[in-house]
């Protein structure tokens, strides 16, 4: 697990981690849909994550909207998942960027809390192994990323793809 702080909103730490070989995605998804208060986390399909920076930009947006009480979804954690998507269709965004019944690799983001507590709580929640965030690239599915963020085949450079993703997230609520 890695912890970050947002320059604009330094009061709460942001914790990000990766779980692999997860067996209970279906259960997690069901509990999310029933607004289980124990699951105050953003569960993200690892295949659409190209880089930590992409996550941080979405998190910064979500925390910002929470502060100004302009969240489009129920809470700051679902807002993170929604914000990763370049479109404003909420259910489609959550379906594409959140977890499905068969997701095995999950990126988890937690806003606030103490990293040790978050870590031990996640270990009880998730039936899988925690892995290093540096392993992220192993699970990235560029085809899905290109499709969801509308990035053409002419853009090949990793950094350039990331820049397009980040820009799409940043411009989302401006369009």
């Amino acid at each position, binding site marked *: 697990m890695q912890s970050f702080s947002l320059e604009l909103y*330094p009061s709460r730490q942001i914790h990000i981690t990766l779980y692999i070989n997860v067996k209970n995605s279906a259960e997690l998804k069901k509990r999310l849909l029933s607004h289980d208060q124990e699951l105050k986390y953003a569960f993200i399909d690892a295949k659409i994550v190209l880089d930590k920076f992409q996550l941080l930009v979405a998190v910064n*947006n979500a925390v*910002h909207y929470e502060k100004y009480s302009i969240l489009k979804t129920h809470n700051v954690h679902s807002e993170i998942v929604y914000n990763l998507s370049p479109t404003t269709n909420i259910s489609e965004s959550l379906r594409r960027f959140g977890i499905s019944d068969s997701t095995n690799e999950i990126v988890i983001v937690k806003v606030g809390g103490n990293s040790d507590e978050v870590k031990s709580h996640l270990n009880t929640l998730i039936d899988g192994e925690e892995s290093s965030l540096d392993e992220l690239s192993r699970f990235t599915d560029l085809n899905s990323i290109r499709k969801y963020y509308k990035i053409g085949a002419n853009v090949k450079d990793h950094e350039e793809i990331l820049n397009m993703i*980040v820009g799409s997230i*940043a*411009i989302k*609520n*401006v*369009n």
Partner: protein
Amino acid sequence: MIENAVLIKQGAEARVYTAPFLTRTAIIKERFPKTYRHPILDNKLTTRRVTQEARCLFKCYRSGVDTPVLYFVDIENNAIYMEFVKGKTLKDLISEMGEWSSSKYEELTTKIGVALAKMHSADVIHGDLTTSNLLLRESNNSLVVIDFGLSYISSLPEDKAVDLYVLEKTFLSTHPNSESMFTSILDIYKNNYKASKDILSKLAEVRLRGRKRSMVG
């Protein structure tokens, strides 16, 4: 505003800061209220400018023009967060490179012509094309267009011609003997932009009358 942001420029419209942002270094452009306007009107206009700037910036990037990467648009505080681009302005570069010769400047004029062609193909009018708003990125020597503060979207040849005219004016007024440089930029522009014929004939018109259209008649 980020606590340890450093003010690097204060203009008539906005303040520009640099600060660490989400593991990177950002430029923050914050537009401030104009006290001579009614507060409600002022806020509305400022917000519109901020969104328009962010849209034009990213539209350009998407069209393949190198620009600073957009990180965050803070509509509530009228600020845009974007990539801090390390590089030299075209203005400084030209004074360093000195006397014009087509071979020495070929690479540079090609980059400028191609970038402008792409930008105008995407119907983005920059609005303030000067040699200070074009940079050469230090890491890969790519030509970066910055400051979309006066940008807007338009498909009119007239608007694109005026955009080019503004650049021509800065070239001629700040860099002596740069007529040929601008001519070669226009050549590249023409070759990389199919619909440029109308724009260039408009440019000839604009040159005769100046940036503003005659309102007589």
